[in-house]
């Protein structure tokens, strides 16, 4: 007993005062669309279809990038011959709709078949502020500063579970924000759901949702929870994103999202933090050991414009 006490005293407080201060070395990709030639190399390299090229007309192209499906594998960064795809350093991304996680750029083709960037498409559905107001309206006052969370694994690979568990460790200690994991949906204000939702978990997820009292909030976690991720959407086994089965209030993309991103998503759902979407450009900090490809030089910071 004495040893335990002395060890604890010596260790002191390990909890990070500001869990959001650290930036990961490599986050979601950032495309400098203005310099992009819509060559489609990144879309071919993307294993989840997070980057896709469409041809709405013979002389037009649309390149879209969705963080909902992105697994941060950085293949697009390595594949881009123009070096206009870079890894952002801000991964505490959260949104209120799937559409908010997608950016779409339009290009015109000239006579030689070269693509020229024209504009960014307006994002479909409500904007961040409008969605935030709607969510606040729905949960007004009822949650206060206390949030009881039931975690539901609706078919994940367990990567998200590892990081959700990490939010409870002494370093992140999410209970200090008034957030508490509970054992039953009947005690929960919020369901934290990972996916992809499998055919075999669909009914269990629906029932868990129905067992939670109103106003129940749902946060979808991970690329698979947001979009089906690498497992896809609409297969015989994987229904896909959580929103295919129950309504989702907040999306936390990433594969898996860091504990900071999950904590951020929960605070967004409580209305304590604002959802953010646009990762900043890579900062001038030490390069991590990861090199996207041995053959090509790394893409440089591209988001200054």
């Amino acid at each position, binding site marked *: 007993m004495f*040893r*335990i006490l002395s*060890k*604890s005293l010596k*260790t002191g407080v390990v909890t990070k005062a500001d869990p959001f201060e650290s930036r*990961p*070395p*490599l986050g979601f990709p950032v495309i400098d669309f203005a310099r992009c030639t819509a060559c489609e190399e990144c879309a071919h390299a993307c*294993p*989840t279809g997070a980057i896709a090229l469409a041809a709405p007309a013979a002389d037009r192209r649309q390149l879209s990038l969705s963080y909902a499906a992105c*697994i*941060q*594998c950085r293949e697009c960064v390595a594949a881009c011959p123009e070096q206009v795809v870079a890894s952002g350093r801000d991964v505490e991304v959260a949104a209120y709709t799937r559409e908010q996680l997608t950016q779409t750029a339009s290009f015109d083709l000239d006579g030689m078949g070269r693509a020229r960037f024209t504009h960014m498409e307006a994002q479909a559905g409500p904007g961040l502020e409008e969605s935030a107001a709607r969510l606040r309206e729905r949960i007004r006052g009822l949650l206060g500063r206390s949030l009881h969370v039931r*975690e539901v*694994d*609706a*078919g*994940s*690979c*367990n*990567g*998200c*579970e*590892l*990081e*959700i*568990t*990490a939010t409870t*460790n*002494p*370093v*992140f200690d999410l209970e200090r924000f008034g957030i508490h*994991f509970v*054992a039953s*949906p009947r005690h929960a204000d919020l369901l934290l759901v990972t996916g*992809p939702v*499998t*055919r*075999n*978990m669909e009914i*269990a997820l629906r029932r*868990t949702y129905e067992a939670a009292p109103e106003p129940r909030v749902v946060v979808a976690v991970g690329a698979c929870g947001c979009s089906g*991720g*690498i*497992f*896809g959407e*609409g*297969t*015989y*086994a994987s229904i896909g994103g959580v929103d295919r089965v129950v309504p989702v209030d907040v999306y936390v993309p990433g*594969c*898996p999202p*860091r504990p900071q991103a999950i904590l951020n998503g929960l605070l967004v759902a409580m209305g304590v933090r604002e959802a953010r979407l646009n990762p900043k450009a890579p900062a001038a900090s030490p390069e*991590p*050991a*990861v*090199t*996207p*490809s*041995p053959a090509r030089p790394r893409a440089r910071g591209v988001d200054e414009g």
Partner: protein
Amino acid sequence: MTAARDVLRDRLALETLAELRPGEFVAEVPLSGLPETADRAMAAGLRLASLFGSDEGPGGGFAVHHLWAATGPPGFVRVWAPVARDAPRFPSIAAKYPVANWFEREIMDYFGLVPEGHPNRSRVALHDDWPENVWPLRKDFDDRQVVPRVGGQSRPYRPVIGEGVFHVPVGPVHAGIIEPGHFRFGVAGEPILYLQVRLFYAHEGTEKRFERLPWRHGLFLAESISGDTSVGHALAFAHAIERLVGVEPPPRARHLRVVLLELERVYNHVADIAGIATDVAFTVPAARAQILREGLVTMQERLFGSRLLRGTIALGGVKCDLTLGRRREILLDLEGLQREFDDLVTLLIDSGNFTDRVDGTGILPNQVARDFGVVGLAGRASGLDLDLRRDQPHDAYSGLHFVVPLEEGGDVRARFMMRAREVELSLVILRHVLEDMPEGRVRSALPDALPPSSSALGWAEGWRGECLHWVQTDGEGRLRRVKVTDPSFKNWQGLAHAVPGNILPDFPVINKSFNLSYSGNDL
């Protein structure tokens, strides 16, 4: 090399046994020859590592494959038999060799091939609401469809009858933050009479998904087979592809792969020790272990850009490199970890409150572990001396000499001690590999296409046990079949036999001491 083949050929009486590649042998037998060969293999001390089906597609039939692991001489022997499309059945070996139980029923569920003579021909993988005569891994089954649900219950749970005995159903949504699965306990008050495990809630269609994705993208799917074993499964897949195309990763990459695999082992073992301490309500060491685990994954993020080591393994090598400065940084971090970790383990095993809960709890007897083919740390905790790092070395393990820790108890304490001793061993291996890193490239170039109509086996000793990937290509060089064998698939049956006789409140810590993957099992 041919000497090894000759020895195995004689022992198994397989005239046609061929050596596909070093350590990988194959022989075709008629269907009726499978049980006989199995008898010989078992008698010769081989163990069944996997058993799976495949569909050769239009114009062809099916095949059933028995994958045997031999240690002296070391090698994997795949004995396969063709199955005619109009006679979809194969002889079962499950009555004699329980390790085949789930494997054969899985073939029945996914391919519609009937295991004749199987003592329990009920579904294992497909849930009750899946219709009859729909087999998702057959080639004529399109994965992009919604399969209607059907009513009825085809597999009632085993009843308990008598005064004061009852069922306790748990899951698939659990009270803690764990994966989905259903446990049905038959209990008499607190003591557990038996445990029935129903899994496959996390069946994401992974094996079918491999067949749809371009083969290079299969690596990312492999990383998501079980999130805690990203390196283990990515390595097994990469090994299979590399063997298929005949490309060796450069020496430096082989060393870096060892670093990644051992780091994965360490962070998972430390996290599991936190979990075991939590499940016996010993919160101080639990918190200490959580802090250590967080320190490890933070270091991994700093060094490799990913806390869980995603995106570090490449086909043909690795995507990361470690400068001398970085390597010294890891060594320094690990030194600190070692001190803290030793303290932590002492704190736990010196505490009567802790040993009281783990000693003699959840015993998996050696014979039961052997019968169900239990592998990895759970097997070693029950005295099964198996470790592919030593028995069939991959990557830079062939140049390392180490003694694989072994425990005999088979209880929660033994599995706890295995973790403690394996972390120690991993730190020795890490130190050695980090200090003795060869120079050079970290990635070999791969050809643009896979060879058509061929197959290869890849393996890696992940932290939980052996990860096996068998990859087969079709006539155009696309992936026709990827059979993934996660250690959990064999170990779940072992777990179900370690539980009866214990009390229900001890189940969480027994379960945690195995820490099996649901996703890796359900695929």
